[in-house]
């Protein structure tokens, strides 16, 4: 069925409306999937979006379309022993990436990074034979009554006066930029895909909001704009990327993209720059001298849910 909006666009054109918005909607509606667009079409889309966002937010907004650079495979490493759970990365991400930040309705506030607080267990001598079933000990990790090892799942809403707390470990999670991303496999409109530099991105214009990717992602990394995004003009970051932090619409899924608008131009992601303990490291996996390559060479590294064969490029390490 020819949708209503296209009909309206046609009508507006026929009426020879001098409203610029009409032509924008027309062009936007018939825009191709970003991967199929020619350079001219990308430039056109870019100019159109820049004009629209600049008018909407009252400042000069740039929409970058820089492609992946050859010889770059982005990688991320996080020192899990250093993380103090201060959530500065979460809020830096919001300041950089134009997420919705409303307070009044559920779903209006979107944060891409979640910091998990986990209890530290103890392998005490007297607890060694506790567990379930009785007598088998720590192999089964204890039970609800006699915890052995780490028992709780993560807590997201911890609010102590000071962090880090004693007997707590913090584990920030966000998009792991998998090499074999389950979200890409399930996307029915192929709007989310892996870029040649390794980042999994979303063409927001083609997202239909079906949330298949949210169900497929084993890392709870994706967020849906349930409401119209609340983005105050003064807080909007005017430096954007088409596949990255440009303002989203209602009904599209978004997630971490390692600050493409920064990293494509050589700059660290925002979360790396604000981490007060320097737990977050970012670099080129193909460069043997990069921070991430050196961490992989020297430190003890693990990946979250490695058994799922998603091959994340987000590595946790400890000294």
């Amino acid at each position: 069925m020819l949708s209503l909006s296209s009909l309206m666009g046609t009508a507006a054109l026929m009426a020879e409306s001098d409203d610029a918005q009409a032509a924008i909607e027309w062009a936007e509606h018939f825009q191709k999937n970003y991967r199929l667009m020619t350079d001219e079409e990308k430039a056109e889309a870019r100019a159109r979006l820049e004009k629209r966002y600049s008018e909407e937010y009252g400042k000069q907004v740039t929409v970058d379309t820089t492609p992946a650079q050859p010889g770059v495979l982005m990688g991320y490493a996080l020192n899990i022993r250093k993380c103090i759970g201060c959530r500065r990365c979460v809020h830096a991400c919001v300041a950089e990436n134009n997420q919705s930040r409303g307070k009044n309705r559920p779903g209006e506030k979107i944060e891409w990074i979640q910091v998990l607080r986990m209890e530290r267990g103890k392998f005490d001598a007297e607890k060694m034979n506790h567990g379930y079933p009785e007598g088998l000990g720590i192999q089964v990790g204890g039970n609800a009554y006699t915890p052995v090892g780490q028992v709780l799942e993560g807590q997201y809403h911890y609010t102590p006066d000071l962090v880090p707390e004693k007997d707590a470990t913090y584990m920030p999670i966000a998009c792991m930029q998998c090499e074999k991303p389950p979200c890409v496999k399930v996307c029915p409109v192929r709007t989310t895909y892996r870029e040649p530099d390794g980042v999994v991105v979303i063409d927001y214009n083609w997202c239909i909001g079906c949330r298949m990717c949210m169900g497929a992602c084993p890392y709870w990394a994706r967020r849906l704009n349930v409401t119209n995004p609340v983005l105050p003009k003064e807080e909007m970051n005017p430096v954007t990327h088409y596949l990255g932090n440009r303002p989203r619409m209602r009904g599209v899924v978004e997630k971490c993209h390692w600050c493409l608008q920064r990293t494509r131009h050589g700059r660290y992601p925002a979360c790396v720059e604000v981490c007060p303990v320097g737990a977050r490291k970012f670099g080129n996996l193909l460069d043997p001298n990069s921070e991430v390559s050196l961490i992989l060479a020297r430190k003890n590294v693990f990946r979250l849910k490695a058994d799922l064969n998603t091959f994340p490029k987000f590595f946790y390490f400890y000294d």
Partner: protein
Amino acid sequence: MKKIALYTTIFALFGGALYVAVAAGKTGAATQPAEAQAATTEAAPAQPAAAAETAAAPADAAKEPVVCFESRKGASEVTQREIRPGWPNVKCSPTTGAALWYGDPFDGTVPMGKMPGLENIPEGHALVKPRSEKLAILPMCATACHNGVGPKFTPPTLPKDKKPTPIPTMEGLLPELKEFQHGRGRLWCLDCHHTTQRNKLVDNFGDPIDFDQSQLLCGKCHGDKLRDWRDGIHGKRIGEWASDGKKRWFLCTECHNPHNVQQGERNRGFAQLQPEPPPPLPKGMPDMKHELVHPVAH
């Protein structure tokens, strides 16, 4: 023919009107956030202290500069200012006063001095934030007391041995020395500070080290950490991610308190901080107690 033209005009008019109506609905949706924002600012005075302060902040911003701390409290700080219109050099957290976003990572930096092992990094690509303005009192130490003149200081009374002795004057000036905690009692002032040049640190041979190169001093003992820091694995850097990119390197003392390295609950070398606010609770959850329940039923 005329009739068709008329129908077309009618259709176009109708379509146009419908379009305008839909567009109006869209702008209505777009203005909604602004209204919501206005509602929250109106609600602000009802809440005490903190909310009122943030509401008053924009008015005071002209005279009172916003200063936020970067890594730990009491170390390096940034003063917020606009680099270009609508683009601040740093954004600060309204709740904790921490630096949350860098508009210019190289703001107020100088090239780092020479250090072995940095041959691959191009000149001027390793930057540090100088501590000179924060150390304004240190040159005074050398003129006021440790000047080599005066009854107590002719000749300068340097201690005969390295046994730590409490110095009441110094403890009065620097209260944190009372809980001095570094090396578990095996270190004292002159292991790190130069004996005669008070605005310098000291290396193993008694030669002075600049305060902007504190890694050379700390690396005397913490060599493994120095190696990791030099390679970018330990410590914080901001700027460009390429291995030979232009970066601001955070120095040891910007994150660790050298006079009390073990402060904090976990004794991990980093003092405790106030965390940023948590995400909103799930719909219908009054508090966070559901997170404390073991999710698997036994």
